[in-house]
């Protein structure tokens, strides 16, 4: 019962956040300097053509009216018309790229989650000994590399040096992502590096605290096999904070996507955002940023709920949101 109440409350707040974000993004982007119509028409445009375009784009309408028009369209599923491609609906290019990014994010998750949990547990169990020191240091080092740095190192080693993976992640015309899965590997690995650091460290430290807990030590003293204790009891509890971290880091993952996709030329949401910003395509920027925010907020929401569900203490207690 409590859980449902919590769920509803959180969901409500999540939706409110998204609404507030949409207002914030819209205003932020629209108040930026630079006359949009002028940018579209270029320096040689006459005063009249700029004014005519402003009129056509509805740029001189009051701000709140423009917001409502935009938001209303969004809810209906109409992401609007791209500024730079008159007559082209954003919808046609947007969703494909989002799909690509989802696959990329998923691949990165597939790589780093098992690896970091595995190594984090290992380091935690062997606390203070050599494997712990090595793994901790590797985690720290990879965490310290911004994605583009690890990306460049990966390119140098695998693409330029060994030549077993493509340097740039382009999909040939007429083909789709599934025929070119090798373009996913290097970008996903770049993201994995950074995430590995965070998650393995978190996993390690939570493992360490759990191992010190009374009931674990009691179980070991009672004579249960160590491995059994670790996997059947300790791991479950040690995983909880890790889930939180993974969820929280979804935001960072999406920020990282922009860098990684730009570096590799991967045709996803990140590189679409970059090219939208570069061409100052306002509707496209708004669509991209809002979507990224949406994913992030939802990921946080789901993580929260997952954590609450899995953590018996919260599940069965009346708690503050």
């Amino acid at each position, binding site marked *: 019962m409590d859980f449902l109440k919590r769920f509803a409350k959180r969901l409500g707040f999540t939706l409110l956040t998204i609404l507030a974000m949409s207002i914030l993004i819209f205003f932020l982007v629209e108040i930026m300097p*630079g006359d949009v119509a*002028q*940018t*579209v*028409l*270029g*320096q*040689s*445009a*006459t005063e*009249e*053509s*700029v004014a*005519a*375009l402003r009129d*056509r784009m509805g740029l001189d309408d009051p701000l709140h009216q423009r917001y409502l028009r935009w938001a209303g369209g969004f809810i209906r599923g109409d992401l609007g018309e*791209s500024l*730079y*491609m*008159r*007559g*082209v609906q954003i919808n*046609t*290019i947007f969703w494909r790229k989002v799909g690509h990014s989802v696959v990329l994010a998923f691949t990165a998750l*597939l*790589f780093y989650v*098992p*690896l970091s*949990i*595995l190594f984090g547990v290992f380091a935690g169990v062997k606390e203070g000994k050599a494997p712990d020191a090595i793994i901790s240091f590797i985690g720290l080092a990879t965490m310290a590399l911004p994605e583009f740095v690890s990306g460049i190192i990966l390119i140098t080693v695998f*693409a330029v040096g060994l030549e*077993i*993976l*493509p*340097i*740039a992640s*382009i999909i*040939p*015309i*007429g*083909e789709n992502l599934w*025929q*070119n*899965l*090798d373009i*996913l*590997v290097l970008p996903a690995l770049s993201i994995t590096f950074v995430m590995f650091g965070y998650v393995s460290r978190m996993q390690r430290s939570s493992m360490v605290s759990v191992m010190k807990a009374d009931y674990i030590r009691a179980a070991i003293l009672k004579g249960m096999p160590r*491995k059994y204790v670790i*996997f059947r009891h300790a*791991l479950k509890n040690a995983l909880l904070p890790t889930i939180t971290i993974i969820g929280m880091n979804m935001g960072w993952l999406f920020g990282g996507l922009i860098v990684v996709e*730009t570096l*590799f*030329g991967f*045709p996803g949401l990140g*590189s679409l955002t*970059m*090219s939208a910003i*570069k*061409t*100052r395509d306002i509707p496209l920027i708004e669509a991209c940023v809002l979507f990224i925010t949406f994913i992030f907020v939802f990921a946080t929401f789901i993580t929260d709920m997952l954590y609450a569900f899995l953590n018996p203490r919260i599940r069965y207690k009346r708690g503050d949101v």
Partner: protein
Amino acid sequence: MKKSIMLCAVFLLAATMVFAGGAQETEEKMTIRVAEQVPNLITPGVWDGQAFSLNGSIYDYLIEMDAHTGELVPSLATEWSSPEGKVWTIKLRKGVKFHDGSDFTSADVKYTLERTQDPDLGHLKAQDFENLDKIETPDDHTVVITLKEAAPTFNFIFTDYNMAILSSDYDYASKGESAPMGTGPFKLEKLVPKESALLVKNSEYWAEGLPKAEELRIYFVPDIDSSVSLLEAGQVDIVPQISPIIKKRLESMDGFKVVSPYQESRFIALADDREPFSDNRVRLAFKYTMDPEILAKACQGTLGETIFYNETPIVNALAQYKEIPFRGRDIDKAKELLAEAGYPDGLKVDFFYASDHPYGSDIAQTLKELSAPAGIELNLKGFPRDIYLSQHWMNGPALLTGWGVRVDPSMLLMLAYHSEGPWNESHIDNPRVDELIDKIRGEVDPEVRQTYYDELQQIFHEEGTVINLQVPYLVGVSDAVSDYRQPLTMLPQLEYTTIK
């Protein structure tokens, strides 16, 4: 549990190796693949319309340019003449069809030309065609253009990349960006905006034996490095507009060559309408700090071979060019001039440029280094090209801009060096210069015209507002490609290109 995690890891590694196989090409048709920069709007005439590989392939122009000799050759126009430059009679090619099957007639030419005057469009050639008095179409294959004032070299404008011939029946306003259509050697089969374009051979093309290739694939890649990586990996064959550093990189590898189909200019404009460059002494002082050899090296080229320096907007490849020797670098003289002009302790000035355009950043930083010893402190302000062109160009005391060469230099002079020119980036307002330009435009006798050009260039040397660094336009090409042609119009003529 641990075992299953181990198994997962092994599986992942195995999967990676499998996927490293790479895509396979099993086609046998001759396909040429080009990687271009992501364009803004692609409809010709609208800003910026610079999807050159795409537009050069799906559209035709009235007159084209021979990529080797620079001469004008008939394309959709078979003949053109004008007794005194005021009334132009143009004969059009018969039997040409648009990709949608409709016939090409004089009505389409009329439509294309009148479109330049559409106030809503902001057509880039609007000013050039203001001189249009009327257009008559006595029959389907003849166009008679009457100008308000005589312009003996008016025909050159039909080679401009903005003047692609459009169909009067087609709705370019709503389909121009998603399904454009023309009479060109290739038909657009599929366009993924901002991503890629698939073009196929126009089997009804009017030119015998062209195009040679059957398919053209154009990728729009935002990052030039990615484009070059694609070239290196054999996934594309041609990459236009590469930087000199990339040229070095490709030249050190087997299987690639770099061609420079033409030269471009980089104009360093010193604004005449505001401090400090409104004073010619300051302009001269700046010019005295120049070192063309170093500038050439900064562009990864050699002065006199691939890079040229002069102080007039007319490039040395043109017949109208007059060689005026460089004054030589003299820091003391520069300081003297500055002191005379009221800047004994040097001065600080903002310098605007497009940071992502080839050579831009390198030239800007070199200029800063070169002018520093004389006390001129350039405050570099680089912006992405879009923002530079829409917000800062024409608006700063000192600018660096890339300019394509115009085969008829009077077109460029009108645009940028006449006090009323729409693209007068240096805001020059010199009555004698204006007079000379007007005279050049109306003069029929080429020898008399040349005397005006000579005088003009001398004036530019002594009190001009521009430094012209000629740099090669570079294209990276795989060795399998033959006959890549790209004349000064900037439009590649991919109909001639073949690939092994």
